[in-house]
């Protein structure tokens, strides 16, 4: 096993983004509203960590407070931006012309391409938990696109389900990149087979897994490379893992 890095949850970057002060126009919400962001990779003011992995530049574990907190309309180019809703409801508005509501297990792939803006809001009454992933595209300034889908919790139980990438049922992406989800209700061994020479990033949403002799608990993550098969030992029921395969 070739381990690129192990990133304990507490060693990620942390940003607290209140809706007032310097962020007032960027962060939506009432004056007490705020977003918390744990970044696996360097992002924004957090620049002392890991720069990225393969084509992935952002893996943000974010919580939006309720009652209108979020990101106001702001521009992007090129990056392929994905959101995976863990809890609560995300209202997504983009300049492709979509206003979308995404609940638990819903996800989208927004390719900003030649230019697009989006707003991400929690207009619900409870917290919104969401994972954001940004990926470098295979081509610059492509036509923008937006697609959404839902992870089917019953069909996806106790197996590895491809959510984004080149597989039937998954949302396509113009990059050598896959996001899969492993939800296991018992201790069990799973195998992920990346296409050579891709790397694999594993992020534990909930539960406990062991990969390459590293024990990962809630919100810990790690990256491996140079493997034909990555063995994932789930150590407890209720385990939920996001698996990101990327070209290196």
């Amino acid at each position, binding site marked *: 096993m070739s381990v690129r890095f192990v990133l304990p949850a507490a060693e990620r970057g942390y940003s607290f983004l209140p809706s007032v002060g310097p962020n007032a126009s960027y962060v939506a919400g009432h004056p007490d509203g705020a977003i918390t962001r744990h970044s696996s990779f360097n992002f924004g003011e957090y620049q002392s960590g890991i720069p990225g992995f393969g084509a992935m530049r952002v893996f943000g574990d974010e919580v939006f407070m309720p009652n209108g907190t979020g990101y106001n309309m702001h521009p992007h180019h090129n990056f392929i931006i994905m959101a995976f809703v863990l809890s609560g409801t995300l209202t997504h508005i983009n300049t492709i012309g979509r206003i979308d509501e995404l609940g638990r297990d819903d996800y989208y792939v927004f390719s900003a391409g030649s230019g697009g803006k989006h707003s991400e809001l929690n207009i619900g009454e409870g917290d919104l938990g969401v994972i954001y992933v940004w990926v470098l595209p295979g081509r610059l*300034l492509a036509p923008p696109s937006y697609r959404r889908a839902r992870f089917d919790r019953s069909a996806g139980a106790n197996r590895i389900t491809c959510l984004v990438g080149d597989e039937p049922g998954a949302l396509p992406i113009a990059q050598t990149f896959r996001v899969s989800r492993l939800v296991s209700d018992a201790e069990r061994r799973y195998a992920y087979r990346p296409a050579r020479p891709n790397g694999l990033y594993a992020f534990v949403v909930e539960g406990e897994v062991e990969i390459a002799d590293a024990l990962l608990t809630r919100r810990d993550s790690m990256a491996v490379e140079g493997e034909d098969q990555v063995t994932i030992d789930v150590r407890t029921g209720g385990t939920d893992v996001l698996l990101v395969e990327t070209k290196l």
Partner: protein
Amino acid sequence: MKKYLCLGCGFSYDEARGLPEHGIAPGTRWADIPDDWVCPDCGTPKSRFEMVEIPYFEGEAAT
């Protein structure tokens, strides 16, 4: 001629194209852009752009 991508928003700078609408002539090298220059779309500093070797989408003028 190289391309650079803003890690704050994805805005791309292409040395061959420059940014005439922002006062940077085509052919301007990245190194010749002032260090205090920021992304015109999101304000991210020049130091947080990444050099990329990604081709344009077909139909975009190749450089």
